[in-house]
């Protein structure tokens, strides 16, 4: 932040003469109660105005002198401007500046005005991550402010090789977006591809990176999220060092890490901070949870309704005994309990925290007990459903967890029709679907099979390791 002496700043801030700016601003911001154009005095032969949106401007940027200084009359109006920069802009630039909290200094007759950066955005402070908690590792996360997020990432990666390309997205309400990449590590073809994708976006406005990701992903996005979104600067830093690029957007704490592979969604932030054996164990645990979550309800339906002979007789008899009195087919019974369970989970997520605990208790315990006693579902299926729900919460990425919740119904129906074979066919269909997906030009199933597409003849270095020789300290 810099301050300028009144005389020197005033010589720099001479507005260009010409008609229309003030009238244009008043016309553009008509019927906006928080728009103010304040006459603050006279400049040379004309009146001088400050225009701003009072709800976005901070009071500490402009200091007015109560006592006019000696010398020229206008020099007494503003004692001091405290801000990072000032620019000159025409009507559209001034409108855009006002919308983001700037103040326009102009005369009644000028065609261009001086834009002062006086924005005072309301934002959360830098807090602990909301969705990616860790036991070991950095304990802060992004917030909704673009500048803060850029600063947080720059603080982690103190190198001029960390490049930032900026653009704005949205025709009606433009929002700032930035693409971070590491010079010499990230593939230039990938950067160009993302820049091209940005230039093709035609939308009125954007609210979140999830929306941006869909627009960047092209036609290939249907079900699976094609890139990891994270609010942790440390995770972004390690991804950048691994050759990926990071897209951040104003107004959301979640940044996109591109390209993304299916395996990336099962990597937690703290995996890199643990010993390799523990990290591998945890990742295997998550993959097992993925398999159980997708296939356990279907497996139950398959072995208790289609392939009854697959199981040992004792287990089949136990399953049949637990279903005694249940009037529905197993498939309907399973669909019913999974649907109820999803309702409980959704209610728990949407409600305020104080109420959600009660809802979970009522839904999970009371309803679960009652539903068994009423012979609507078997108690074995309740165990299966509870295990399925539990394993769904192990999924690291929220978007991937939602995909899992949808896909288990697909697998369930497959198992209901073809039994064990249906499970395998559903698995095959999912793998085939995944094998055809690409995230920003990179195979979604990487590292299985051919790794990456070629950009300008070079294979994209997706998993660049830090194989460079360690540099010795000079001296």
């Amino acid at each position, binding site marked *: 932040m810099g301050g300028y002496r009144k005389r020197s700043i005033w010589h720099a801030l001479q507005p260009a003469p010409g008609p229309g700016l003030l009238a244009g601003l008043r016309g553009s911001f008509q019927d906006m109660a928080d728009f103010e154009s304040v006459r603050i005095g006279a400049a040379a032969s004309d009146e001088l105005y400050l225009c701003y949106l009072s709800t976005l401007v901070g009071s500490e940027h402009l200091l007015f002198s109560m006592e006019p200084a000696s010398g020229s009359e206008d020099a007494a109006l503003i004692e001091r401007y405290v801000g990072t920069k000032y620019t000159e802009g025409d009507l559209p630039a001034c409108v855009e500046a006002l919308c983001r909290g700037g103040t326009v200094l102009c005369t009644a007759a000028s065609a261009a005005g001086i834009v002062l950066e006086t924005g005072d955005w309301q934002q959360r402070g830098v807090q602990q991550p909301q969705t990616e908690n860790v036991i070991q590792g950095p304990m802060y996360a992004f917030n909704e402010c673009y500048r803060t997020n850029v600063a947080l990432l720059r603080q982690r990666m103190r190198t001029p090789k960390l490049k930032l390309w900026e653009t704005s997205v949205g025709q009606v309400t433009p929002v700032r977006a930035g693409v971070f990449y590491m010079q010499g590590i990230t593939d230039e073809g990938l950067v160009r591809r993302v820049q091209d994708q940005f230039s093709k976006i035609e939308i009125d406005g954007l609210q979140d990176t999830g929306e941006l990701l869909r627009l960047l992903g092209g036609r290939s996005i249907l079900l699976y999220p094609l890139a990891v979104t994270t609010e942790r600067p440390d995770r972004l830093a390690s991804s950048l060092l691994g050759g990926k690029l990071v897209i951040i957007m104003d107004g959301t704490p979640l940044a996109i890490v591109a390209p993304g592979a299916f395996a990336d969604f099962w990597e937690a932030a703290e995996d890199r901070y643990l010993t390799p054996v523990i990290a591998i164990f945890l990742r295997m645990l998550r993959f097992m949870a993925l398999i159980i979550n997708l296939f356990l309800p279907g497996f139950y339906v398959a072995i208790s309704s*289609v*392939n009854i*002979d*697959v*199981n*040992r*007789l004792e*287990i089949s008899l136990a399953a049949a005994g637990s279903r005694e009195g249940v009037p529905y087919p197993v498939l309907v019974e399973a669909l019913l309990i999974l649907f109820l369970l999803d309702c409980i989970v959704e209610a728990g997520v949407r409600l305020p925290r104080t109420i959600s605990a009660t809802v979970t208790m009522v839904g999970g315990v009371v309803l679960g007990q009652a539903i068994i006693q009423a012979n609507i579902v078997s108690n074995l299926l309740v165990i299966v459903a509870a295990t399925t729900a539990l394993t769904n919460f192990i999924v690291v990425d929220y978007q991937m967890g939602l995909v899992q919740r949808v896909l288990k119904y697909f697998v369930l129906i497959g198992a209901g*029709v*073809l*039994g*064990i*074979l249906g*499970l*395998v*066919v559903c*698995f*095959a*269909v999912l*793998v*085939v*679907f*995944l*094998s*055809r997906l*690409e995230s920003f030009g990179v*195979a979604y*199933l990487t590292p*299985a*099979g*051919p790794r990456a*597409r*070629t950009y300008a*003849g070079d294979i994209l270095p997706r998993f660049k390791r830090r194989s460079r020789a360690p540099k010795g300290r000079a001296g």
Partner: protein
Amino acid sequence: MNDAALRLSSTQFFILILAVFGATSYFLYPYLVLHSTEGSYWMPILTGVLVGVLGAKTFSGLMALHPGLDAFAVLRRTLGLPGLLLFALPFAWHVWRAMVMIARAHAEIISMTILHATPLWALHCIVFVAMFLAAGGIASIVRAAAVFIVVGIPVTVGLTLLGFSDLDFTLHEPWDPGHLSFLDSRAFYSSSYVWVGFLYLSSCGQHARRPDRLWLPYTAAAACFLPVMFGTVYLPVLTFGPAFSKVLAFPFLTKMDSISHYWLIVENLTAVFISAAILFVILTLSLMMHSLVAALRAILPFLPARPAYAIVGIGTYVSALLIPSWDWIEKGVWLETPVRLYLLALPPLVLLLARLAKGRGARA
């Protein structure tokens, strides 16, 4: 994915070949081997391996004539349009027949063993899964293959190993090396469909870094799968005896059915085995479809890829439905044998002609 610039590693070719072996060797193959000779079952198996490796070697030589091209383009460049037609037409015929047989055979096996009431038209729908995979290109096929192999091989090989638990070695036949009666047997030549998996790589020549070494992954896959093949033949023989094994339609599946251990939570291992093997079937069908579409597009260059895959997929599905019974499958495998052997013999002939032409050119 930019398929033209795609390079596949030897491991990826190995995985593809492994999938072909997995799809073709468990069901009809033991039956054919058991009917090809009276005692020394290892001889038709080993002879088949050797013929397969020799075939793969000459096929690699053919591909190496013009590196960076697929087999159809190589033949066109070497022998002109007649050469292309001499290879692509019988190849397309063979692959289409093979796809129909594999799809129908597996649907029949599933219907006979685990899903008795499910209609065949529903079971044949795996053809469309394979079609969807094939339409994604060779990169998608290889990626899916990597996952399928990781899941399918441990299950199928593990279940095969379980079959070792209750063998009676007194039931074995003498290992007579002079027993060459299988060379007169129709069943032996019919079983050659297992060994021609390298032909399905016809459309992959341009993805190989060294086409002349394409036979190495084939040989490695054959060597790895050879013990399993011995198992598919010898496990039923050493469990039920040669005479009883011969009358079984699926000796190896029947062997699977007979496995029982108190610690196994799964009683019907056949269902698990067939379900896991379906992954190989899907992969093999997709690889075949990919090569068939490449052959069709080599003959008819104006044919667009997506409609070609749709035509091939729907054609295979309908043709498989039209087969009336299992007997027709056995007959079909035999009737298709001459074309298969012709395709095996063609690459060395082409190599010979190419060398003659080169020698004549050098003299001129």
